[in-house]
């Protein structure tokens, strides 16, 4: 795989014109907006973007305004990958027939967790199976935020949403977050990675790799929503650091199915004492507030255990030895 | 299963089942026991062509009708012999061509040659020809 290492200094990024423009109507402190800016900074040339229905689609294209400097298409909630398929094959055949300029045009499909984990997974799985050359970016804010914070397959265990409300009987969502990136690795696709915007360089590099690879690439980006997570607007990026440090959201990539930890998570793997307790992460967000009560406290322990199990499993996949079982 | 064909020198506009056929071709003789294949046959001048080794007179007994003229042709045997598989419709085509005289053997050959590659066409036409020549009437 071609590596574009070194191209992305802070100055490179700052100097490159934005393709996702100011004036969009995402909420203050919206991490997905930062993520889209970064993704578009990673582009290598002509690019067409297709967007699933969701927060970022709605907030960036309120007619007659658009925040997109690239060609951009939205059709429906569940169609991002199917649209990317159509765009990719159209480019291929029109280029072959000499109807458009003979140049590489990258295709990016953007979708939130609803458009990826749930309603969009069929189209995504199909498009990846067919091997279309495109980058699918999941900006995961862990619930249906566009319609007002309803739980999705990407909502973590214990989180309170408007359809998994923490009440006197039910303590928030009772199911685990679906391992979407692993599901994509199981498709035997050439490139899958997770990314967190705090580690901006890692994110941009991975997005670029996803564009450069031949065939489908999947990038799972952690993207806090202060409105839905009941967190401080200013902390949206900080939370993405904390999620990595607690191993709630480890960073890795799988090139042709081979897992490898990315530096921020590798540091923790090599020095397990740096791994922070999940409590530090959970307490920053109102959606987990009900866990910090005597009645629900055990759930925090459960979350810690599940996080540890998943982390250890990941370490094994990456060919690393997990530390001796936590006491 | 029943299927219908209309043959005409004029454009065919009717798009529905055939209720009163001039010709009934029975590809699967086991149906004779369960289906009254002669039911809709026209009163005068009809033909019933059955894939069977039996004589037409024997088949007439099973049919339980006085209508039409009964013909038999051992379509399954011809197919097995030449093609090695019991595809009966090609043989039945030969029999229908002979009985109705709507198309000549030459025309059938021409169309088979147009549709199939030479080796396949040759075998198929051999089936048609043997059935054409071998179909027996009462």
């Amino acid at each position, binding site marked *: 795989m071609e590596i574009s290492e070194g191209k992305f200094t*802070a*100055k490179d*990024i*700052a*100097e490159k014109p*934005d393709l*996702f*423009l*100011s*004036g*969009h*109507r*995402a*909420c*203050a*402190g*919206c*991490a*997905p*907006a*930062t993520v889209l*800016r*970064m993704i578009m900074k990673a582009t290598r040339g002509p690019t067409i973007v297709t967007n699933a229905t969701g927060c970022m689609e709605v907030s*960036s*294209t309120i*007619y*007659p*305004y*658009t*925040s997109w400097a690239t060609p951009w298409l939205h059709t429906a909630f569940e169609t991002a990958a199917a649209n990317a398929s159509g765009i990719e094959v159209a480019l291929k055949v029109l280029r072959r027939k000499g109807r458009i300029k003979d140049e590489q045009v990258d295709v990016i499909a953007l979708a939130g967790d609803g458009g990826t984990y749930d309603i969009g997974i069929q189209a995504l799985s199909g498009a990846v199976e067919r091997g279309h050359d495109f980058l699918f970016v999941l900006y995961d804010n862990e619930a249906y935020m566009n319609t007002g914070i309803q739980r999705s397959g990407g909502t973590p265990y214990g989180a309170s949403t408007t359809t998994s409300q923490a009440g006197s009987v039910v303590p928030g969502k009772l199911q685990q977050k679906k391992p979407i990136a692993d599901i994509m690795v199981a498709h035997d696709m050439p490139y899958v990675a997770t990314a967190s*915007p705090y580690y*901006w360089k890692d994110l941009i590099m991975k997005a670029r790799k996803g564009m450069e690879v031949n065939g489908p690439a999947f990038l799972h980006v952690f993207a806090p929503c*202060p409105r839905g997570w009941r967190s*401080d*607007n*200013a*902390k*949206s*990026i*900080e939370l993405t650091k904390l999620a990595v440090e607690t191993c709630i959201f480890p960073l890795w990539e799988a090139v042709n199915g081979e897992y490898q930890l990315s530096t921020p998570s590798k540091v923790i793997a090599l020095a397990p004492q740096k791994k922070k307790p999940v409590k530090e992460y959970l307490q920053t967000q109102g959606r987990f507030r009900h866990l910090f009560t005597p009645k629900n406290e055990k759930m925090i322990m459960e979350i810690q255990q599940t996080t540890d199990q998943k982390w250890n499993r990941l370490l094994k996949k990456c060919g690393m030895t997990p530390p001796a079982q936590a006491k | 299963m029943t299927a219908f064909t209309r043959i005409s020198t004029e454009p065919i506009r009717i798009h529905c089942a055939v209720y009163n056929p001039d010709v009934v071709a029975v590809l699967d003789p086991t149906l004779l026991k369960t289906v009254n294949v002669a039911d809709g046959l026209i009163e005068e001048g009809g033909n019933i062509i059955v894939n069977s080794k039996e004589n037409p007179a024997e088949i007439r007994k099973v049919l339980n009708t006085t209508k039409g003229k009964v013909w038999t042709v051992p379509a399954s045997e011809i197919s097995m012999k030449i093609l090695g598989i019991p595809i009966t419709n090609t043989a039945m085509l030969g029999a229908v061509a002979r009985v109705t005289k709507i198309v000549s053997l030459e025309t059938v050959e021409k169309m088979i040659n147009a549709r199939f590659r030479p080796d396949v066409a040759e075998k198929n036409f051999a089936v048609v020809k043997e059935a054409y020549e071998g179909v027996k009437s009462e």
Partner: protein
Amino acid sequence: MNSKDKSWKEISPAGVCWKSSKTYLTGDWKSFTPDRDVKKCTKCLLCTIYCPDAVIHWNAEKDDIEFDMNFCKGCGICANECPTKAIVMKIA
């Protein structure tokens, strides 16, 4: 609806957008505003990268960053992420 909205005969089909959101100013949303202490700022550019609204730009001529307050929603990410605490949020 307002009187400036166009009729169906005047607009392109299928909702092709004809205005850049750069003409839609979101700066008046904010309750807080960033205040930079130039002396503390090391021009590390992290704020330009993390800002969800592309408010902060690198101006090569001035060899400095600049804020386009027309779009700042006052989220405070820049202040939170500033490694030298050169940016603080103040009431707008």
